[in-house]
């Protein structure tokens, strides 16, 4: 059996959990949130939307399938620290290439296991997500609580800056399939249609969004978050995509203005942070949720079809529907708490969703939205 090193998770409100360390030796600070997905920890770890956050998994056995090179959402993991009930060191999966702990260690991410994660989750649920420090180095609980208190909150911070790409790039790979991913070339060859040119704003984009866009026949050009609207329009795209990303939508420099400039000129599709920014660009407001939605089982109702889709979600902020009255239509709502899950700008080929149709991890129920985007581009 592995010899265990101690680790501490200290919350800003003074709550302390003592457990065992795995992953990197070190310390990580950030907002602590919990995720209720039972599968897909690798996708979660590599989702840039988690920039600035520590994640606690509600499912207790983590590490079961190790990590592999395909199940990544970005070039590296973004979660700052990882909290689990029991870490499984030896993976069992034909796809596994490395144990999870080794991967975290290689990326400098500390983990803690052996704590009562359910008690932690109940605490966060009742008292709200909050700043915390996970440490496998400094084991002085009081000091860690102080550090947690000193950790800046997400509100008002532009985290997109930390995660967006520096240079534009093209993406041409389709989603993972048991037999291997397809390329844009193969996909286009099969349909015989000309690829649609999509410019994707990278606010911290998940690669599975890119893969899904490719799958529906889009040639995607990814641009940094601060790319001016006119440069984008100059590329004469068929549509513009607004990606997911970390933190407070209100703090993303220039995004609101850029998006406002795009509106009316090109079909726009936004996901998660992209959806919130669209809301802001339309003149609406966003607010912070108590502990957000992080998981793969959130029921969302499509108000047009009255049907429910089970969705993957990962957000701490939401769009205030009242603030948009008359400017956009709410198309989707969350059935758990009735928050806004989708918007459409009437008379324009522009829409957005708060949740993640690209899933990864999570169910594929909402994948139709990528086709809807294609429809909007083809019949603006």
């Amino acid at each position, binding site marked *: 059996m592995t010899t265990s090193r101690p680790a501490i998770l200290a919350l800003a409100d003074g709550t302390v959990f003592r457990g065992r360390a795995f992953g990197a030796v070190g310390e990580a600070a950030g907002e602590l949130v919990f995720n209720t997905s039972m599968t897909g920890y690798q996708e979660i770890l590599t989702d840039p939307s988690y920039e600035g956050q520590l994640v606690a998994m*509600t499912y207790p056995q983590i590490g079961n399938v190790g990590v592999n090179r395909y*199940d990544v959402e970005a070039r590296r993991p973004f979660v700052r620290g990882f909290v689990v009930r029991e870490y499984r060191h030896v993976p*069992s999966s034909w796809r596994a290439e490395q144990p999870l702990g080794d991967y975290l260690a290689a990326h400098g991410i500390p983990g803690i296991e052996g704590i009562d994660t359910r008690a932690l989750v109940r605490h966060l649920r009742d008292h709200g997500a909050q700043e915390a420090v996970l440490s496998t180095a400094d084991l002085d609980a009081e000091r860690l609580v102080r550090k947690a208190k000193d950790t800046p909150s997400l509100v008002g911070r532009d985290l997109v800056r930390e995660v967006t790409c520096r240079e534009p790039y093209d993406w041409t790979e389709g989603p993972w399939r048991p037999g291997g991913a397809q390329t844009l070339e193969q996909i286009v060859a099969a349909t015989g249609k000309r690829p649609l040119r999509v410019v994707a704003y990278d606010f911290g984009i998940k690669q599975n969004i890119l893969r899904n866009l490719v799958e529906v026949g889009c040639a995607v050009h990814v641009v940094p978050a601060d790319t001016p609207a006119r440069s984008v329009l100059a590329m004469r795209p068929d549509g513009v995509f607004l990606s997911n990303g970390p933190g407070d939508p209100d703090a993303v420099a220039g995004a609101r203005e850029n998006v406002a400039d795009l509106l009316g000129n090109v079909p726009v599709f936004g996901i998660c942070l992209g959806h919130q920014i669209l809301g802001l660009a339309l003149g609406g407001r966003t607010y912070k949720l108590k502990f957000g939605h992080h998981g793969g089982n959130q029921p969302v109702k499509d108000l047009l079809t009255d049907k429910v889709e089970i969705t993957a979600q990962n957000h701490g902020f939401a769009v205030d529907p009242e603030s948009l009255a008359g400017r956009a239509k709410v198309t989707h709502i969350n059935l758990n708490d009735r928050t806004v899950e989708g918007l459409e700008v009437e008379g324009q080929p522009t829409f957005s969703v708060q949740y993640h149709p690209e899933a990864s991890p999570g169910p594929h129920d909402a994948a139709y939205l990528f086709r809807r985007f294609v429809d909007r581009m083809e019949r603006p």
Partner: protein
Amino acid sequence: MPRRPDLQTILVIGSGPIVIGQACEFDYSGTQACKALREEGYRVVLVNSNPATIMTDPETADRTYVEPLTVDVLERIIAAERPQALLPTIGGQTGLNLALDAAEAGVLDRYGVELIGAKVDAIKRAEDRDNFKATMRAIGLDLPRSGVAHSLEEAEAIRCEIGLPVILRASRTLGGTGGNFATTEEEFRAHVAWGLEASPIGEILIEESIAGWKEFELEVMRDGKDNVVIVCSIENFDPMGVHTGDSITVAPAQTLTDKEYQTMRDAAVAIIRAIGVDTGGSNIQFAVHPDTGRMVVIEMNPRVSRSSALASKATGFPIAKIAAKLAVGYTLDELRNDITRETPACFEPTIDYVVTKIPRFTFEKFPQASDTLGPQMKSVGEAMAIGRTMKESLQKAMRSLEIGSAGFEPRPDASPETLAERLAVPNADRLWYIGEAFRRGMTVEEVAARTRIDPWFLRHVEEIIATEASLAGRTLASLDAEALWALKQDGFSDLRLAALLGVTEDQVRARREQLGVRPVYKTVDTCGAEFEAFTPYLYSTYERGDCEARPSGRRKIVILGGGPNRIGQGIEFDYCCVHSALALREDGFETIMVNCNPETVSTDYDTSDKLFFEPLTLEDVLAIVERERPEGVIVQFGGQTPLRLAVALERAGVPIIGTTPDAIDRAEDRERFDEVLTALDLRRPANGIARSEAEAVTVAERIGYPVLVRPSYVLGGRAMEIVYDRASLHRYMRMAVRASPEHPVLIDHFLEDAIEIDVDAVSDGTDVVIGGIMEHIERAGVHSGDSACSLPPYSIDAEVQADIRRQAVALARELRVVGLMNVQFAVKDRVVYVLEVNPRASRTVPFVSKAIGRPLAKIAVRCMVGRSLAAQGFTQELVPSHVSVKEAVFPFIKFPGVDTVLGPEMKSTGEVMGIDASFGGAFAKAQIAAGTALPTAGRVFISVPPECYDAVIPVARRLAGVGFGLVATRGTGAHLRAAGLPAEHVNKVAEGSPHTVDLIQRGDVALVINTPSGAESFRDSFPIRRTALECRVPYFTTVAAAAAAAQAIELLARGRLGVEALQDYHRRVAATA
């Protein structure tokens, strides 16, 4: 859409008797469905032949028909009740098949009955394997290569195409009956023959064997708006090749990446849509190649199933209840999640614990049966456990099984060869052998190579064994809080730790408590704590965080359930536990249920105020009692499981209510019971106790052969035998005494040809009221659980009955019974002998309650909390004018090579009830309900030993009178002819062809009456009984049962039987009382 306003009356079909592959889970689903439909204001008409169910309680449905599940009966019920709709998806395979048959027979069209939930074509697309495969291919899903055959020739052609090994399965069966692997051509041909026979439509599927692949199940729900959710994923510990019902299974799936899981989820969603299940739950099984990830579809069950019950208990999502609501028009988003209240039922539960189910087998009942596990289900029950980690969950499940295991006990006697074999060939004890393999130094890779079990699972076992090894040489005192926490978090029981540390369980508990190492309770809340939970459905775990049990200050009673189903202890006990919870709740108590059987109604979080899904061990129960501090604990309803804990609980200061543990002991302990009988001047068969072989001979010779011998203190007649001479006694003693060295053997004089009587009574400590007197059809010597019986008695006279009543009342008074009591008597030459007294709930309580129309268990529990019988208005025995017959149902067909003869060892898995105005009618219904289609014409084969010649003559005469031809073996035939009955001769098997077996196989016999006696006769006649069983020819192994059957046949030949609702029968009993 809200509920459909165009429907008023809905017919629900139950699943009939408990058989292997179909157990209490359908009572759970059926009860939920009935409740859900009535909640919506529908009038519910229910048909189910199984009296031991909550669903057949007269309060569960508006109209309850305890009648055989046949098309004919269904049509009569439909004609009488005129339902607009039929819900076919909650009564298991039986319910589904019956609905299909009724549809095919045109009954549903004739009366304008609509199938809701699933339509005929959808059911067929799922059930017909060929059709199913075509549908899967059409939506681009992969399958094992296969073909369908209706004859040996067709089968051979398919074999040539796909090669060996293959798996052969019979269409339209349950529990995998007829499924077999064939690796050689001989095996192939043999299995083809078996499968064609086992399939009710003579069809088999031949399929590429993918044994060793990983096996998964998804529980899927769909509503009328085409919303689909996955309620739960389940991964099998035992890979493909072992029926999921016989596999250890774990929820959620553990070894899939999200990419793979979502591929499977997409497939499941596509499947439920393609099959076209309109609304409700389905179970879909998949296999995944461990090295390549290739995923194939195995099957879909378009209905609630054993797995959906497990999934409901594993997640807190009540699949059957929701399915019922969806069937009448609701959509998932319109229904609430009961547990969170705020959120809708349209979501996918997420769980923050690990659930392990381990099947419960009873191979000890069928020594001739092979305990190898395969695609045909053999287990009779299951235990489920919840833990925060795999290790905790697994070890909790092991100690929940009630097989005397507290964890990974070693198997030191296994030779290396045995060990290798036990690993490679799936069997009931494989888990423990895996532990043993690690103990002997095998690596995970080695064990994985032999068992093909995923290394992820094996590693947990390896870690547990390594932890055990690390305790070698340690003392209890040397373990500090830290160490104990770690051990308890891994799920080690106090008992196992005691064994490892060489101390007692009490010492381990004391040390733990001294160090403050106590379990906390967490909630099963469907949502991983994301929302607040309002339903206290709890499990224990060792976490140093918070406890969610929140004991109330109300008056509360803990009810201990019965644990996993097994032969001898089944649904009847769960029924009693549920009734006590319902009654106490009605009376304002807080009710707390403890049980670990996921199939049951008792583990529905709706049944009691609080549910602890926990093993029924001293440790686990004490922890709950300590947390909750109830006013009383009830041990007398859950069968032997809680009873075994009674004394220890009482010693630990737990308030046991009702009959005292001491009184129970006075009834169970032979010597003390003798004192009771002597004091009352009651008689029992001469008997003695032997602690050695020599002593046994002395005792047997004193009391006279034949004797009935058995080890002490067992339920269900385990290892019980009738011994006719000294040589057999020696043989038995050598076997039995080795089986349990420290326990003595009990010896009774065996009363030959005695009538057996069961009596259920209830007492408040002062008054005693007889619930019912049941006369067995089979003579004493056939276990009471296995013999048919009639209420009221059909042959014994009033005087003897009065004597029986007097004795039962005297026993209840002497034992100061508060609650239920069951007595078994034998009547020989009008003398009444007491066979045994069980001062607790018995198997017959639900049957009696349904026969007389009063809920005995509820009455009893009220006595236990201090309400007198007088106050409850139950002061005298009710003797109905109608006759109720109970018949047992056996699993023989699942165990090739096993004899079907009945004896003192209980072998039945379930029971049915037949109710009619006459004994013959009730018996006929019971037979039909039990699957014995009594013929009304044809030839009857009779072969009985000389001592039965006289008794069989009236039976033969009666059958001849109906028009049956008689065929008999030499001796019997001569006797029949001497009595003036024309009987054809047929050879015994040993006498050469054409013989009896040929006759049966050719279909020339419609009925078999064959009573063997003596070892030789048993051996000779075995093929007769087995062939009759396999050829579905009704057979009777006792003259008594044959006589009853003859009466029934006579009645059937005269015309059809009527149907009547339980509510009407009860109204009449009440009116005449």
